[in-house]
C-alpha cells in the first residue's frame, strides 16, 4: 500500500514535468521593456495556461540579434530597429511588424545623499558623457564650477542596451558615441544598486526602474537649454513630450511568420488591450488609446517594416506618424 501511494505521488510529481503546451511564444530583448512584457505575459498565463510564454532579457541589440536569426517570436526593443538591423532582416528574409507599446522617460538620477545637484542641462549631460570626456571630465566641479571637487562616478547602460543607443543619440548626437570609463551594465538593477550606494554617483536608466526604487534614488530634472524650465520625467511630461530629449517610445517587434499563428495573435491582442493599464502599474507611461488602436490595425493587416526607417526617433510624435502611415 505504502509503495503504491509513493508511486502515485511520484507520478503526480512527474506529470507536471511532462505537461504539454499547445504553443510556445519566445520573447527576448530590452530590459526596459521587460517589466511590461512580463506583466502582460503573467496575466496572459492566467487566462491561457496552455500557452507557454517565456520572456528573456539580453538587451535590445541582443534581442534583435536573436530575432533576426529567427530564434524568437517577439523582440522587446527600447529603440526602433536600426538601419543595419533592417539590412540584416532583408538578408535573412525576416519580416517584422513594429508595434509601439509604451513610452519611457530616461531618468537621470543621483544618490539621495547628493545635496547639490538641482537640475542638469542637456549641455551638461553632454559634457559628462561625451566620448571626448573620457579620462578628462572626472570631477563634479568640472561640470559646474560651484559644485564640489569630488569624483564624478558614472553609471549607465551597457553597449548592447537600447537605452544606451537612445541616450547617446539624444545627448551626444550620435547613437553609440559615449565615453567608456563608467560602470556599464545591461542589467538596470546593477546600476540602481551602484548609484544608490554612491554619494558621488550619477546614473541614467528607464523611468520604471526609478519608480520601483524611489526611496533609494534622487531624480534630477532636465533643462533642454539654460533658459528653459527644468522638467522632471513624469507620466504627464513624458506622454506630452515636454520631457525632452529623454522621452522615447518602446516597441515590440513581431516576426510575421509568428504573427500568423492564432495564439500569437491572441497574445498580441491581449497585450495591446492591457498595455495601458499595466504600464501605469509598473511605472512606465501608457500611449494614447488611439495609438494602441492604430497599432492593432497594423498588426491585423500584417503591415511590415518600421516607421522610423528613414527618420530619427528623438522627439518623434507617434500618433501623427501612425496616422500618416495608415493613410
Amino acid at each position, binding site marked *: 500500500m505504502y509503495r503504491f501511494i509513493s508511486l502515485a505521488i511520484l507520478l503526480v510529481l512527474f506529470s507536471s514535468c511532462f505537461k504539454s503546451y499547445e504553443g510556445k511564444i519566445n520573447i527576448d530583448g530590452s530590459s526596459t521593456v521587460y517589466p511590461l512584457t512580463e506583466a502582460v505575459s503573467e496575466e496572459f498565463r492566467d487566462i491561457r495556461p496552455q500557452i507557454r510564454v517565456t520572456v528573456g532579457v539580453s538587451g535590445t541589440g541582443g534581442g534583435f540579434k536573436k530575432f533576426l536569426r529567427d530564434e524568437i517570436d517577439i523582440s522587446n526593443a527600447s529603440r526602433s530597429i536600426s538601419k543595419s538591423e533592417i539590412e540584416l532582416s532583408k538578408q535573412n528574409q525576416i519580416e517584422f511588424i513594429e508595434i509601439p507599446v509604451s513610452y519611457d522617460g530616461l531618468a537621470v538620477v543621483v544618490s539621495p545623499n547628493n545635496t547639490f545637484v538641482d537640475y542638469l542641462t542637456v549641455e551638461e549631460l553632454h559634457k559628462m558623457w561625451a*566620448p571626448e570626456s573620457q579620462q578628462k571630465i572626472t570631477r563634479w566641479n568640472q561640470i559646474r564650477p560651484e559644485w564640489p571637487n569630488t569624483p564624478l562616478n558614472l553609471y549607465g547602460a551597457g553597449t548592447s542596451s537600447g537605452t544606451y543607443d537612445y541616450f547617446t543619440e539624444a545627448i551626444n548626437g550620435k547613437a553609440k558615441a559615449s565615453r567608456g570609463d563608467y560602470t556599464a551594465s545591461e542589467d538596470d538593477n546593477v546600476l540602481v544598486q*551602484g548609484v544608490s550606494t554612491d554619494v558621488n554617483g550619477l546614473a541614467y536608466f528607464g523611468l520604471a526602474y526609478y519608480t520601483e526604487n524611489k526611496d533609494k534614488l534622487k531624480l534630477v530634472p532636465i533643462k533642454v537649454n539654460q533658459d528653459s524650465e527644468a522638467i522632471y520625467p513624469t507620466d504627464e511630461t513624458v506622454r506630452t513630450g515636454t520631457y525632452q530629449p529623454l522621452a522615447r517610445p518602446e516597441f515590440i517587434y513581431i516576426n510575421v511568420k509568428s504573427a500568423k499563428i492564432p495564439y500569437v495573435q491572441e497574445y498580441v491582442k491581449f497585450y495591446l488591450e492591457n498595455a495601458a493599464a499595466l504600464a501605469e502599474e509598473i511605472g512606465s507611461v501608457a500611449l494614447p488609446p488611439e495609438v494602441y488602436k492604430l497599432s492593432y490595425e497594423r498588426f491585423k493587416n500584417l503591415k511590415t517594416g518600421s516607421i522610423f526607417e528613414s527618420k530619427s526617433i528623438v522627439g518623434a510624435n507617434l500618433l501623427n506618424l501612425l496616422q500618416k502611415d495608415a493613410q
Partner: protein
Amino acid sequence: MAKSSIKSEKFIELIMIACSLISVLTTLGIILVLSIDTIKFFAEVSFFDFITDTQWTPLFADKHFGILPLLTGTILTTVIATLVAVPVGISIAVYLNEYASKKFTATVKPILEILAAIPTVVYGFFALQFVTPLLQIFIPSLSGFNALSPGIVMGIMIIPYITSLSEDALRAVPKSLREASYGLGANKLQTAFKVMVPAASSGIIVSIILAISRALGETMIVAIAAGQQPNLTLNPLKSVETITTYIVQVSMGDVPQDSLEYRTIFAAGITLFAFTFILNNISFWIQKKYQNRYD
C-alpha cells in the same frame, strides 16, 4: 588464468593513462584555443599598447586596449583577500595543531571546510548586500561597488585552502622537533611560531600560493560586488573590474563572435592564465625542493 590477469592489468593501465591524458590534453587544448584568438588579437592591437595603455574601453567608440586597469583590479582584490586569509588561515592551522584538543579539531575542521563549499554567487551577494553596507558605516566614502568588500569576502572563502594544507604540513613536522624545543625550555607560543611554522614553511607557502591562484581566478564574487568599471587605481574604496569580470561581461552580452571585441576576452584570459600558471609552477617547485627535508 595468469595470462588473463596480466591482460586485464594492461587494460586497466591503459584506462588510467587515458584518464591522465584527458587532463593534460584539456590543458593543451585550452592553451591552443586561447593562443589562436590571442594571436589574431595581437595582429590588430600592438602588444606594447596592450601592456602600457592605461585605459581599457574595447566596447566603446574610443577604443583602448590597455590591460593594466583590469590587471590592477585583479591584483588589488587578490592582495586584499591574501591579507585577510593568510594571517587568519595560518593562525587557525597553528591553533588546531598546537593548542586545540583532538575532539575540538575534529568538529571544527569540517565546519571550516564548509566555507569552501558555499557557492561563490552566495559569497558575492553577501559581499554586496551585507559587507559593503557594513563597511560604509565606518568608511562613508566607500562606493557601492568597491574592491575592498569582495576582497575581504574572497579572503574568507580561501581561508580553508590555507588552513587545511597548512595544518597537514604542520602535522607532518616530526615530533622530535617539538620535543627538542620544549626540552630547550621554549613555551608553546615560541614552539609554534619559531619552530613548527618555519619547519612546515614549504607546505604553508604552497598552501598560500594555491589560495592566491584561487583568488586570482575567482569570478562571481568580484563580478557581483566589485563593479564593472575598468579603473586604473590601487584605491580599494573605488569600483574596479577584474579580468574575470570582464570576460563574464563580454560573454554574457552580445558581442559578435569573431570580432576584435570578442577576441579581447582571449587576450585577457591568457594574461590571467599566465599568472596562475606561473604561481602554480612556483608552488610545484617549492614543494619539490623542500619536501621531506626532515625525513
